[in-house]
């Protein structure tokens, strides 16, 4: 399992290590965390504590895997700590990128924008394996298809 270079987390976010020293350990972030609606036991405060103390964070941590970026934790936190942004930095450092996210970023580098048909085509093996095809009919009900010439060049 990859060890996280924690100094990189602080480079990627606007936070410094000492910013997490203010965490009171009140766990209000855990009480509102959306990931806990999935019956996963998650405590965002533990991540902040580990970053402050320089302890390792496993890449299969539930919050790192399932955080939806809903900012409920930030809204509840007495210090307004933006935990979802810390999690995104952790994902970047761990390079836990799904084929969809890779295709998204590739499209942005090619066209400067997300061209959805390209993203879908590039992620087809993943979509097939992940059981997404059954949703295709529903998606075509409202999705608009346009040709790539309407997507600008970067």
């Amino acid at each position, binding site marked *: 399992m990859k060890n996280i270079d924690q100094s990189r987390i602080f480079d*990627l*976010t*606007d936070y410094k290590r000492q910013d997490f020293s203010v965490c009171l350990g009140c766990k209000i972030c855990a009480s509102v965390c*959306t990931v806990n*609606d*999935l019956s996963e036991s998650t405590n965002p405060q533990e991540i902040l504590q580990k970053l402050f103390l320089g302890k390792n964070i496993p890449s299969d941590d539930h919050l790192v*895997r*399932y955080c*939806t*970026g*809903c*900012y*409920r934790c*930030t*809204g509840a936190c007495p210090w*307004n700590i*933006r935990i*979802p*942004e810390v999690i*995104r*930095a*952790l*994902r*970047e*450092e761990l390079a836990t990128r*799904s084929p*969809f*996210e890779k295709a*998204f*970023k590739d499209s*942005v580098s090619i066209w*400067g*924008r*997300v*061209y*959805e*048909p390209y993203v879908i085509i590039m*992620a087809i093996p*993943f979509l097939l394996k*992940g*059981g*997404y095809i059954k*949703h295709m009919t*529903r*998606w075509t*009900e*409202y*999705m*608009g*298809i*346009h040709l790539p010439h*309407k*997507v*600008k060049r*970067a």
Partner: protein
Amino acid sequence: MNYGYYPGCSLTGSAHKLDKGIRKVFEKQGHTLKEIPDWNCCGAFEYGDRKELTGFSKKNLEKASGLFSEIVAPCPACYKNLREADEQKEFTITHPLDLFDDAFIGSVKQARDLKGHVFTPYYGCILLRPRETAIQRNTVMEEVISRFGGDVAGEKVKDRCCGGNQIFINKSVTEKLSKLVLEKSKGTIVVFCPLCHMAMKTFSGERKVIYLTDLLLYIMGENKVL
């Protein structure tokens, strides 16, 4: 009123209905939307490097500079990213929901009412959080629905997460979270976020999921979404 308009990537594709709806509602109310020329993706939530993410929106603001001082961005992710990139507060970046004030709603030429229909207004996460970029008018959907005779339900789910962010990473997460919202809501789900729309639509079965703009156009007698 003239506004600079930042549609964002979703509104050129999967959320093209929201784009058309916004343009039409604004036109009908006498406002002009003009696209920021050659805009690029705002990066949504896909970039772990904060500087890289803000860089995308800073580039968009540079392109708007000198042309517009007021910018409207309907997609919650784009709206949040633009607001955060405008560190010097050079622009007034507004979400359409904040423009739907009493005067705006009051001047809607009503052709239909919503009597006999039940709606759950669903804002999702990014319109209401984090507080620095949250919209001000956080009951605007309820106001529109009640003003035109509809019944509002599902108040408790309005700010819950649909898990849309995870739909192409861990689909089961989105399925479970969206179904929780669907179970605790009633009637037609009214949304504004393209991601919430996609997540809800994917798992809603027979339940209707519509954009607020489509509901406004229905009231104005334009389309028949109900």
